């Protein structure tokens, strides 16, 4: 039997670029303290739009984290992804010189590609003429740009891929990385970062009925409350270094978490109540793959869309899948304080889940006080609890539902 033992994927490094912090330390400190950073949108060309509040990554200078030659040929979403990938590789103390480049892959998820770069070049096309469009337009606005540039920069020649999807694509990218590991890849740089806070991208989002048009940053995104009025978009995301368990151990890497199980379903766009069944099914599938009983789940990172119908569906899905344990397990939604960075959002939740298990702390749901569903939503302050297994949930505006089970790793927190 041992010859057929499944190759398992462990997280050995984290790289985070989030509205509440650049770098894992800053992100975790703000997340643990429940600091909300939602604010009026300050980016150029966006301030006159009816979508007023978002989670911006402020004070991020790409040239301090990414070589200038990559900065000029890529969009902000790739700047974030490359910066996060660099942090994850450094955190994992991963050196490509030590191993075969063909054993290292890259997988990212993207919901919208490089909208800001694309808008700039298309304005040149129609404003000045075709010769004013730079050649990097051909690659910068492409969904695959971040995967391609991370692999080029790092010299990673293993299986690469891009999940083009809605929010849940972040978790699906991790599942794709796990399949790569099972198939023989040693390591995968995986995750997602998005940059939807630019004029063209913002206008696209105005078509989503779920987006919150409220202008009070502390009241704009209140999931699981009677005042829920939609979600607030955000930019940023996280990249993880994921390695095959025994290969990671051999090189002395810190095994920070095990990617234990994942499942995804699709329930379409005709009403959030349908996501109840889809999300519950995804949770059951993830638990089954992880060989995890519902009672073993120590914390749930909720999707928390902030739309009453969707919040109700999620609360019911958790109850359907976890049974009586659903009323006892701590549930949290740190994204209420930073917004939803589309595919980057569940990646930030995964980073928070790994850190939460390392510190035995459930971070709170910022800005939320009165919860109107039968969930033990952690609000106000962080809560200490022994955390061995975390469940991360994500749903997308286009109808995807995904669930991921993470188990605590063997490494001590640094």
């Amino acid at each position, binding site marked *: 039997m041992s010859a057929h033992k499944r190759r398992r994927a462990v997280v050995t490094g984290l790289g985070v670029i989030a509205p509440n912090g650049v770098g894992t330390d800053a992100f975790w400190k703000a997340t643990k303290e429940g600091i909300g950073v939602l604010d009026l949108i300050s980016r150029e060309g966006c301030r006159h739009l009816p979508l007023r509040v978002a989670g911006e990554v402020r004070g991020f200078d790409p040239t301090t984290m990414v070589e200038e030659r990559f900065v000029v040929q890529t969009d902000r979403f790739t700047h974030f992804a490359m910066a996060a990938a660099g942090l994850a590789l450094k955190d994992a103390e991963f050196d490509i010189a030590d191993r075969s480049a063909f054993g290292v892959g890259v997988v990212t998820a993207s919901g919208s590609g490089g909208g800001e770069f694309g808008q700039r070049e298309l304005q040149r096309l129609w404003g000045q003429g075709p010769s004013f469009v730079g*050649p990097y337009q051909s690659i910068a606005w492409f969904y695959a740009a971040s995967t391609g540039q991370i692999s080029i920069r790092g010299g990673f020649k293993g299986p690469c891929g891009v999940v083009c999807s809605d929010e849940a694509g972040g978790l699906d990218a991790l599942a794709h990385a796990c399949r790569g590991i099972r198939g023989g890849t040693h390591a995968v740089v995986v995750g997602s970062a998005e940059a939807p806070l630019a004029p063209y991208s913002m206008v696209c989002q105005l078509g989503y009925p779920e987006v919150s048009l409220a202008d009070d940053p502390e009241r704009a995104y209140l999931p699981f409350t009677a005042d829920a009025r939609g979600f607030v978009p955000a930019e940023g995301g996280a990249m993880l270094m994921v390695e095959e368990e025994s290969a990671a151990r051999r090189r002395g890497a810190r095994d920070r978490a095990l990617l234990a199980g994942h499942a995804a379903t699709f329930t379409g766009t005709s009403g959030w109540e349908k996501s109840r069944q889809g999300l519950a099914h995804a949770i059951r599938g993830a638990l089954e793959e992880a060989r995890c009983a519902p009672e073993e789940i120590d914390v749930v990172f909720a999707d928390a869309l902030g739309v009453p119908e969707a919040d109700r569906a999620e609360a019911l899905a958790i109850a359907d899948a976890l049974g009586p344990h659903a009323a006892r397990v701590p549930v949290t939604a740190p994204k209420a304080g930073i917004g939803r960075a589309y595919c980057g959002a569940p990646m930030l939740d995964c980073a928070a889940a790994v850190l939460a298990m390392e510190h035995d702390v459930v971070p709170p749901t910022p800005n939320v006080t009165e919860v109107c569903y039968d969930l033990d939503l952690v609000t106000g302050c962080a809560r200490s609890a022994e955390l061995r297994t975390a469940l991360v949930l994500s749903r997308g505006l286009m109808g995807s539902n995904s669930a991921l089970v993470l188990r605590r790793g063997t490494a001590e927190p640094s």
Partner: protein
Amino acid sequence: MSSQLTFSELASLMKSCAGLTVDPKDLEKRPDCAFAEYNLDSLGLLGIVSELEKRYGKPIPAGPETCKTPGEFVEAINASLMAGA
């Protein structure tokens, strides 16, 4: 800009079009050192050709964008400018 492309101008175009910091003296001393050594890829070179077309106000016939070295490129551009002059 003079009517002929110099290594110094090429160095500044490599910076503005492709984000590469290159010493023009290096380009001049080693004109046969491949663009790849400077991390300039084919799209970067295409961007430089397109910038030169705008500066000279006329199209540059196909050819220079496939050059592999600075020496070859400067020669090809200048030949093209001479031919069109």
